């Protein structure tokens, strides 16, 4: 074990800008965990899911230990408290995304569900035969497949804007593919496989010129970049809680009020209705119209605590720290001749996707795991991106606010070990 590894969970010097990574790390209990053979955990799979700070864990425990009841139902104390906690999280998400009204936030299970919700409600009602849906080549499967299903159902055509060799969107092609047939343009804010940050405001402007509605997949953006849906000007924006330090199973869809109000409901059931008779059901108001059934109350409460946490640390500080890690990791990995990087866009989030010559990413991932380094290996639910570069898979290291340069060093020494084993 290298000396830097043994020091991982020890207090670290304060970093530039007053960002105290040791204090941050102390707030995430899992980071003190030792893996087999006493190796410290080097968690570099944050694009898959982030770890949870104590504040989030306590909020979920606190909810179940103190306030648990169903929401929007009863008049009793616990139900009122649970409802207040749930609706407080909605206001936090409203503020976090820069939405105008809390009603514009619909709680969903995940980003995937948010995209499906829009495709199956707004999409089913508004996309007609001959219309087009425009996506990009760098989308996660969750922003491809729901649109394929919609196009199949409604007789529309899916168009795909290409990316270049650096992993950047070809904006000229995106613009060329927009036309008066384009009903909706759906694109990611940050590519999960390549780290590319798209110029979302510019893309929204182009789409609006042809009258297209816009949806942004913000799954990889939320814990890393400031988001301002009104500044961006998009119609829909999707986030998932578990990638931004919240529990799994709780995410949010932002939609402009007028659009949400005009959309048919998603699922039928309790909560989404005003009145039910066998002859006619009157639907509840936005956003409850889209929240049929008992939601993931504890998850949403935890998500609210996660927003508090991110805001307390500050997105500017998080961004600066992650940029430093990205630059350092890129430089260190680029210096190894057998390593190839995929996704070298000018504007990137802290994601480094790479392969090692002659080594399948799964073998690299297993050997890295043996060093305690957790990275994602595979196609990252973005098979078209892999096809674009002619590879089946990559290794992906993705960073969060609690990662350190020493952990980058652990990754790099793990990669050297892979090369040594495969000789």
């Amino acid at each position, binding site marked *: 074990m290298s000396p830097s590894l043994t020091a991982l969970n020890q207090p670290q010097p304060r970093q530039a800008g007053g960002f105290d990574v040791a204090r941050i790390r102390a707030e995430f209990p899992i980071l003190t965990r030792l893996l087999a*053979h006493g190796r410290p955990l080097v968690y570099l799979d944050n694009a898959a899911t982030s770890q949870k700070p104590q504040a989030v864990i306590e909020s979920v425990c606190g909810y179940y230990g103190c306030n648990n009841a169903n929401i929007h139902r009863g008049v009793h104390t616990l139900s009122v408290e649970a409802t207040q906690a749930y609706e407080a999280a909605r206001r936090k998400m409203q503020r976090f995304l820069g939405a105008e009204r809390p009603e514009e936030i619909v709680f969903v299970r995940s980003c995937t569900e948010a995209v499906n919700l829009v495709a199956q409600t707004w999409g089913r009602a508004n996309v007609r035969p001959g219309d087009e849906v425009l996506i990009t080549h760098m989308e996660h499967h969750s922003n491809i497949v729901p649109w394929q299903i919609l196009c199949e159902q409604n007789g529309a055509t899916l168009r795909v804007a290409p990316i270049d060799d650096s992993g950047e969107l070809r904006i000229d092609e995106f613009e060329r593919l927009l036309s008066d047939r384009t009903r909706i343009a759906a694109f990611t804010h940050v590519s999960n496989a390549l780290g590319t940050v798209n110029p979302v405001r510019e893309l929204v402007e182009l789409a609006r010129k042809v009258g297209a509605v816009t949806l942004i997949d913000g799954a990889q953006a939320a814990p890393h970049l400031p988001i301002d849906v009104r500044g961006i000007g998009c119609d829909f924006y999707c986030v998932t809680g578990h990638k931004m330090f919240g529990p799994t199973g709780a995410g949010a869809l932002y939609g402009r009020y007028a659009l949400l109000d005009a959309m048919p409901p998603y699922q039928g059931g309790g909560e989404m209705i005003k009145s039910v008779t066998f002859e006619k059901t009157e639907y509840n108001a936005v956003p409850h119209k889209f929240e049929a059934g008992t939601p993931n109350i504890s998850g949403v409460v935890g998500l609210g605590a996660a927003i508090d946490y991110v805001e307390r640390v500050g997105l500017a500080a998080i961004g600066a720290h992650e940029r430093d890690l990205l630059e350092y990791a890129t430089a260190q990995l680029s210096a190894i001749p057998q390593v190839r990087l995929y996704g070298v866009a000018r504007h990137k989030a802290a994601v480094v996707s790479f392969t090692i010559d002659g*080594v*399948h*990413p*799964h*073998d690299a991932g*297993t*050997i890295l*795991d*043996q060093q305690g380094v957790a990275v994602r290996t*595979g*196609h990252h639910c973005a098979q078209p991106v892999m096809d674009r570069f002619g590879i*089946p*898979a990559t290794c992906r290291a993705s960073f969060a606010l609690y990662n350190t340069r020493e952990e980058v060093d652990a990754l790099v020494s793990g990669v050297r*070990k892979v090369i040594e*084993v*495969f*000789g």
Partner: protein
Amino acid sequence: MSDLGDLYQELLLDHYRRPRNHGRIADADGVADGNNPLCGDRVRVFVRVRDDIVQDVKFEGGGCAISTASASIMTEAVKGQTIGDARRLFKRFHKLVTEGIDDPRGPAHGTGERAGDASAEAPPLGKLEVFAGVGEYPARVKCATLAWHTLEAALEHRTETVTTE
């Protein structure tokens, strides 16, 4: 198990770099495809059986070191075996990579109709023992078993693509 050398041993790496019995059998009487699309592991197994003996077996394709080496070492291990012995060897191998246990009768005592005589012992593992370390990496079992499941399909003349994902 304490060292990664236990998994990526030289024998395994050698079969990854220079796979044996790699290619096609022109007069094969069983061919099957295996594909783990999530990994990108893809294998086609050819078998020629005469008088219940696996006379020849070859494979095309590959993927990660574990799946490629597993296919390569498998071809060496089953060539010349009876079909029953090849199946019993698969069961023995399967138990090794899933549970890290070498049991000559494989995992399915009493449910071994497909293995023929359930009480019969499988042939020794030999070089297949190099995969004992896979048991510590449950995510990689699918890599080690893809070629074997594909061989089984080839022996049974099944046409659907095999997957272990």
